[in-house]
């Protein structure tokens, strides 16, 4: 007999780590995802994972990692969980090392490290330039090992529809739909973990995978889970714009010596190096994205007068580049048609990551008892800006914590057996789905999605103005009204991707309002949230976590204190070394 049953939704790093931890403790696991784990978005992560393993003898420490993360996040992250994450990071790397992840090695056969942004140490372990893929596969293999022993069942090709609560409000399972047969079913469990990734599709143009629908988190929010710091959206400075997706050129390109420049007065101008001498090309993402925006939009100095600057690796040794960055150079070559070993790449910022997400406590449990969240869908580890290499770390560490959290939770608490809630919720979900299949208005859901993406990208990314945020929220309400008039052009009861898309779109529209209104309310600049009308960070009024509660008329915002017990907030600037800011 198993010690209890847990449902994990998501086969990315966070979901698989949770799964393995729960299985190890003897829990039975049912793992749900859109598809096989190897297709999860985590596979896209390129640059690497941060851990102060100090294999280069620079004297790097977990405290320094912790301080960089808090400083990089502009002091908005709760410090206790971030400290836990940084302290555990080297052990996490060694665990993956034991499980067979092929990290790049030094001459001595030890794990190699490189530099990423916002940091003055070599602290990022990597596996070529496809680190996420490698870490993901490692965990997937371990889950398969348990599958072979019959301890875990995978439901791949299923969409999570809703969490189900018993009469006391305790989470007792989920409803989900199989995306081929379109069958809707309820699944009972003692606890549920959401590890469903980021909401990238809300912005249309993003570096995220198409599976980053954000639907699961939106649904949880609409069911009463608090959504925290939604307005903090990371824009990655270096992506290649594309018709279907903006492909990322990892920060590791700069970590390995890549330089960002454009022409000024006919000569190359390395503006990041000039403006930020202490960190140069390796300033954090929010800083780099704003600088590129300034160069292109304000100064009109983009390459060929367009919204583009160069990211240049052509001065580096091509053999070394292949070893350390092969995966991403291949992407530029295949999709951009040019060889980045020879010519500079053309890049521009793009939506990349959501620091905000489902509110969780330090055991990764949401405000619904028995419903946990981990990975990019939670809000826990990055404050106002995430450092490169901390994303995967937080997904893995969050998964470890959620795994432990769930094990502890099911020991003491179980949902009631008697509730009819599961059956009722299945009926409701079936009704909702039927209603979508009958939508017979005049609006095209894909056109609404495109408008949503355009508005969010134009008004709620790098630079934010209150009047435009207001207009964006009005637009979102208009889109919500138009949503009701959608016409569906596919009535099949087999593989109906269009009906599923429409359902997801509804969730995205609700969540977009959380992001937009959170940004509108926050009259300051902090990390990735930048308002020219309020350019200073305002700790007195805004050193607090935004909490959004769902209501049918839009999110209700409230605020929560931030845990700053270890490091006192100080001014964040990257033109000078970090030490100087400590004595200021």
């Amino acid at each position, binding site marked *: 007999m198993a010690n209890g049953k847990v449902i994990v939704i998501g086969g990315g790093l966070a979901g698989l780590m949770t799964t*393995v*931890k729960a299985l*190890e403790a003897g829990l039975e696991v049912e793992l749900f995802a*859109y*598809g*096989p784990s*190897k*297709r*999860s*978005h985590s*596979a*896209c992560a390129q640059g690497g994972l941060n851990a102060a393993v100090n294999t280069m003898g620079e004297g790097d420490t977990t405290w320094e990692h912790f301080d960089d993360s808090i400083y990089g996040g502009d002091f908005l992250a709760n410090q206790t969980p971030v400290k836990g994450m940084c302290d555990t990071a080297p052990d996490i790397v*060694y*665990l993956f*090392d*034991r*499980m*067979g992840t*092929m*990290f*790049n*090695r*030094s*001459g*001595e*056969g*030890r*794990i190699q490290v490189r530099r990423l942004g916002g940091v003055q140490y070599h602290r990022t372990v990597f*596996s070529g330039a496809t680190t996420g*893929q*490698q870490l993901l596969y490692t965990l997937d*293999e*371990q889950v*398969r*090992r348990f*599958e072979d022993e019959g301890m875990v069942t995978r439901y791949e090709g299923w969409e999570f529809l809703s969490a189900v609560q018993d009469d006391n409000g305790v989470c007792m399972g989920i409803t989900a739909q199989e995306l*081929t047969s379109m069958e809707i079913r309820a699944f009972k469990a003692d606890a549920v973990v959401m590890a469903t990734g980021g909401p990238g599709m809300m912005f249309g143009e993003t570096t995220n*995978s*198409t*599976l980053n629908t954000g639907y699961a988190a939106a649904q949880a929010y609409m069911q009463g889970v608090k959504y925290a710091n939604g307005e903090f959206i990371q824009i990655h400075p270096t992506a290649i714009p*594309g*018709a*279907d*997706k903006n*492909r990322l050129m990892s920060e590791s390109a700069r970590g390995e010596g890549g330089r960002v420049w454009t022409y000024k007065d006919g000569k190359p101008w390395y503006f990041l190096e000039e403006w930020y001498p202490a960190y140069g090309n390796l300033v954090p993402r929010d800083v780099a994205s704003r600088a590129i925006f300034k160069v292109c939009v304000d100064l009109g100095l983009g390459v060929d007068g367009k919204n583009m600057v160069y990211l240049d690796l052509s001065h580096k040794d091509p053999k070394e580049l292949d070893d350390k960055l092969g*995966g991403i150079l291949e*992407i530029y070559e*295949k*999709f*951009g*048609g040019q060889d980045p070993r020879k010519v500079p790449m053309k890049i521009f910022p793009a939506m990349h990551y959501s620091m905000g997400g489902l509110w969780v406590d330090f055991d990764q449990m949401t405000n619904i008892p028995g419903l946990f969240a981990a990975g990019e869908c939670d809000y826990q580890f990055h404050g106002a800006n995430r450092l490169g290499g901390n994303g995967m770390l937080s997904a893995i560490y969050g998964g470890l914590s959620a795994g432990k959290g769930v094990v502890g939770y099911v020991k003491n608490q179980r949902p009631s057996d008697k509730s009819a809630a599961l059956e009722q919720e299945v009926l409701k979900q079936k009704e909702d789905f039927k209603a979508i299949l009958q939508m017979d208005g005049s609006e*095209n859901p*894909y056109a609404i999605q495109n408008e949503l993406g355009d508005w969010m990208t134009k008004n709620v990314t790098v630079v934010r103005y209150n009047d435009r945020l207001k207009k964006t929220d009005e637009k979102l309400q208009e889109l919500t009204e138009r949503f009701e008039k959608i016409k569906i*052009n*596919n009535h*099949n009861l*087999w*593989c109906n*991707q*269009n009906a599923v898309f429409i359902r997801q779109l509804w969730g995205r529209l609700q969540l977009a309002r959380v992001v937009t209104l959170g940004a509108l309310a926050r009259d300051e600049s902090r990390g990735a949230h930048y308002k020219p009308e309020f350019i200073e960070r305002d700790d007195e009024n805004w050193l607090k976590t935004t909490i959004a509660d769902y209501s049918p008329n839009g999110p209700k915002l409230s605020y929560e204190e931030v845990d700053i017990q270890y490091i006192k907030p100080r001014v964040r600037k990257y033109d000078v070394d970090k030490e100087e800011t400590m004595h200021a």
Partner: protein
Amino acid sequence: MPKTVQLKIKRQEVPESQPYWEEFEVPYQKNMNVISALMEIQLKPVNVKGQATTPVVWDCSCLEEVCGACSMIINNKARQACSALVDDLEQPITLEPLTKFPVACDLMVDRQIIFDYLKRAKAWIDVDGYFFSGPGPKVSETTRRFAYDLSRCMSCGCCMEACPNFNEKSAFMGPAIIGQVRLFTLHPTGQTSKDQRLEALGGKGGIGDCGNSQNCIEICPKGLPLRRAIGEMNREVFGYKVKKWLKAD
């Protein structure tokens, strides 16, 4: 006249129904790939005859050729739709589902069998547990490089599609599985438990069924070193069998 892209797509409503061809014409954009052409159909599902139709169903995720989801046959070649740039393709572009896996709908197939075979081949490292107990074994950078190349296998199914010996009638697990077994017998910890994997690869559907057509080497979108992997595994499995035979005596 604005430029357009012609597509000819093999469609199938349900697994039991007959496939049929449908043609489309979508607006051209610079740098577009097959995925963005399919997205255009999704936006406006009208075929070339001007008839309203259902949008085409396909599988995709990362759109940068690391997830393996969007394999299909494009102009008679199995490959990823995301990295298939329209400018490089002759038109009309023909799109068909992979043929070695059951079709779910249109271009979407069910590749579960790949993961079942990975299970059979015990393609993982047997660690003692998921607690923290220091670093793993040291690995030389040369070994790491070969292992990394093998471990980029996305389980996309292209090699199986191209392999004449991988089909409904045969139990052959396919080239990708051989590559993964090579990977896990390479790792120092994996070596200690390699017998169980060699057993699987020496048995039914194992490496003995490889006909050495080498199609896999050519088709693999990630350029995995499959030639070397298959050669080395042939030797290892042979050695394992001899050892077993000697022991049995």
